[in-house]
């Protein structure tokens, strides 16, 4: 399955400055593995794929937090949009 991945500012330097990249995989774990294979500089930042999503990394599949979709086992439909965001303090609303 081919997906697009939105990268936050702090990770773009590891993807040749790209804000949006393409990746493939049947589930999120495979997509992240594909991504870090293409851009090894991302590997350290996204944590060890085998142990699941790190607490400080938020990954959304078509706008839904992957943690609630099965984590690394979350299916990623063809054409879906993955968004990676750092966990940061915000929302003083």
């Amino acid at each position, binding site marked *: 399955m081919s997906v697009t991945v939105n990268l936050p*500012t702090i990770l773009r330097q590891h993807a040749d400055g790209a804000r949006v990249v393409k990746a493939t995989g049947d589930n999120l774990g495979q997509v992240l593995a594909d991504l870090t294979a293409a851009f090894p500089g991302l590997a350290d930042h996204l944590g060890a794929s085998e142990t699941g999503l790190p607490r*400080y*990394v938020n990954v959304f599949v078509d706008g*839904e937090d992957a943690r*609630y979709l099965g984590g690394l086992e979350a299916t990623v439909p063809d054409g879906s949009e993955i968004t990676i965001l750092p966990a*940061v303090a915000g*929302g003083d609303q």
Partner: protein
Amino acid sequence: MRELGIATSPLLRLASLEANRVRLYAKAEWHQPTGSVKDRIAAAMIATAESDGLIGPGAELLEPSSGNTGIAMARIARIVGYDFTVLVPDNVSVERIQLLEAFGARIRFSPGLEGSNGAVWRAAEMAAAENKTMLHQYENEANPDAHESTTGPEILDQLAEMGERIPSAVVACLGTGGTLMGIGRALRAVSSDVRVVAAEPPVGEEIAGLRSMSDGYVPPIFRAEELDGRILIRTGASIATTRRLVEEVGLFCGPSSGAAVAAALKVSERLEPGSVVVTVLPDAGWKYLSTGLYQGSVEAAEEQVSDFTLW
């Protein structure tokens, strides 16, 4: 908290926006003393600190805030007589600065590029160095406790008064996490299968000042396992929904209200018709007028607001 003017906010039905025949109700939190939901937690954190003996006459408080909590705390500090310093990102809207000044807060600025995240870690260092008390909305359990003891029970009472059923879902913006944790606990005590879902603006996407993802911050009061979902709502969608609230419902809300309602409508699509969803509208639009959020096309407004720390 009532002696500090904390109100039982109205619960409004947003009938004209509803999707999938799911009834949508919203707490109108601009009915609080400084016009935001944060009045609840400011009162609770200060009251708890006083009864714990952490602060008393002559106390010097310092808090990181992109606006609403700082304003709420500044007001109470002014009433009670505490010295209050707020650390604010330098790109918040001018109305927030003016309100903080009006309430007599001492204002210091953190780099706007770092957003609220930068204010949080810098404030902790500052409070330690200057021996001031940081009540720390992101770590203080009085924050979710306030929602568990006021906002949540109000929702249940208000729905019952209308003969309405218990909500299938509660949807609110995720900032400190206090609103969701607190309301979630109150509602789950009555109905264990209520879904608690967060609406999240893409706060970290353009944040600078992190060397790596592991420099990130997860509010200690936030428990991911107490949520059933978390939905990313982009700025454009927040603005578009905020405009709908003004234009279709006649409610002049701030952008986080648009984010919350956008997420609530997505959740509505997944529920059985005839269910009830509740959300929280944190504040009104007054302090965002200068950001361009309510003017021109949604795309133009999105461009305008990108310079500000809105969340």
